[in-house]
């Protein structure tokens, strides 16, 4: 057996691939579900915090900044294991799926809040003044004038951060979730062949390349006419 054949047999073994493909596909959908949950929860919570912060209530803002810095500083894997292995000690247990969902949502929330906040503060003060001078309330101005502009500015950094954090769903394999990586690793240990990992890598590409392209599309779609 030449080394080339050995390489093919290890990473592109069709028999193993056919056997474990269904597991990987199951893992794929689980990853999609987990990623969607994280993206929705994280972005909504992040936007909510940024909006709260714009009210300028000092003690509340300190709290927000503290939480945001905390979740930006903690490695996501630490957070996941802490929730999964730590909470039961407090008489409260989460599934692997729920721990990952919660942990990565908190991390995405923290980064998203910072990005949304940067977007809100980047909208010129004159926009607030013009809107308020016509009698729009603070909230109306925020919703109809400031946020639409802030969100457009935040789309590129937000897309990058969202992709980076949703790729962290692979960390769920540590807490026994059979998402793509978990399913692939299980496949490797049963078949004694790394081909399932190749399938897993392909599955990630199938999942995230369209997301990257979607990000690009949204970016151009929402750039306003000049």
């Amino acid at each position, binding site marked *: 057996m030449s080394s080339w054949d050995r390489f093919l047999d290890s990473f592109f073994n069709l028999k193993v691939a056919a056997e474990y493909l269904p597991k990987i596909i199951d893992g794929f959908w689980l990853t999609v579900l987990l990623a969607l949950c994280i993206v929705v929860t994280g972005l909504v919570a992040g936007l909510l915090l940024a909006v709260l912060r714009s009210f300028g209530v000092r003690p509340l803002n300190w709290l927000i900044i503290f939480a945001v810095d905390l979740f930006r500083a903690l490695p996501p894997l630490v957070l996941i294991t802490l929730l999964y292995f730590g909470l039961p000690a407090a008489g409260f247990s989460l599934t692997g799926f729920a721990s990952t969902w919660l942990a990565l949502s908190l991390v995405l929330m923290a980064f998203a809040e910072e990005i949304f906040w940067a977007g809100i503060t980047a909208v010129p003060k004159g926009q607030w*003044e*013009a809107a308020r*001078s016509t*009698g*729009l309330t603070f909230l109306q101005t925020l919703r109809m004038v400031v946020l639409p*502009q802030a969100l457009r500015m935040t789309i590129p950094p937000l897309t990058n951060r969202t992709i980076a954090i949703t790729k962290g769903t692979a960390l769920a394999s540590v807490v026994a979730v059979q998402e793509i990586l978990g399913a692939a690793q299980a496949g490797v240990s049963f078949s004694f062949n790394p081909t399932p990992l190749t399938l897993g890598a392909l599955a990630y590409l199938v999942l995230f390349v369209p997301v990257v392209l979607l990000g690009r599309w949204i970016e151009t779609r929402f750039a306003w*006419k000049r």
Partner: protein
Amino acid sequence: MPESIIRAQGVHKHFGPLHVLKGVDLEVAERELVFIIGPSGSGKSTLLRCLNRLEEPSSGSIWVDGINMLDRRTDINKARQRIGMVFQSFNLYPHMTALGNVMLALRKVQKLPREQAERRAWAALERVHLSDRADHYPGQLSGGQQQRVAIARAIALEPRVMLFDEPTSALDPELVGGVLAAMRELREDGMTMVVVSHEMGFARAAADRVVFMADGMILEQGPPDAIFGNPQHERTRAFIRQINRH
């Protein structure tokens, strides 16, 4: 003299250690056009922004159209509909068309139904001769056109008073004319206007009164001919000399 539509008394404004307005009294009669001039940092813009409470005065009293602007119980959003404001940097909403810019407050503040708001917005754009640009975004308009849309956005709400904060300072010289023309037409329709600007030609031709401010105080005021032709105060003389040189 008819009842004042704007009455500001003893207005002080502090920004931290800076004392920007030092007890300013200003009365403006209905249909009057008052020009405020003065060196930069004299507090002109701050005074203007206090009138609709974009800036919160530290003390004093401000009444506009019978409304006590500084009373906590005053619905400031309602009061502001009577006071149109035009800014140096236009401040159009870049994500909305010209028509969208003018319609926003008609829809959301005055709660007009869509067709009615659209009709009023259209009429306002017509008044600044820009109805043919209604579907353009601010980025597709020249500075002068943007400023005229901003004027339309303010007058669409049918305000009783219009405030202009250096409306032509950010414009290329060839675009100033259109904005001044729009202001002159407003003037001819009897709008009460307070204008912070250095357009002396316009002030001479259109203003009823010129107010000279320096160091947060009104030093001198009177008809344009008197202020420009025969200023009494040394600071005013120096200022007029300086702008005449340009």
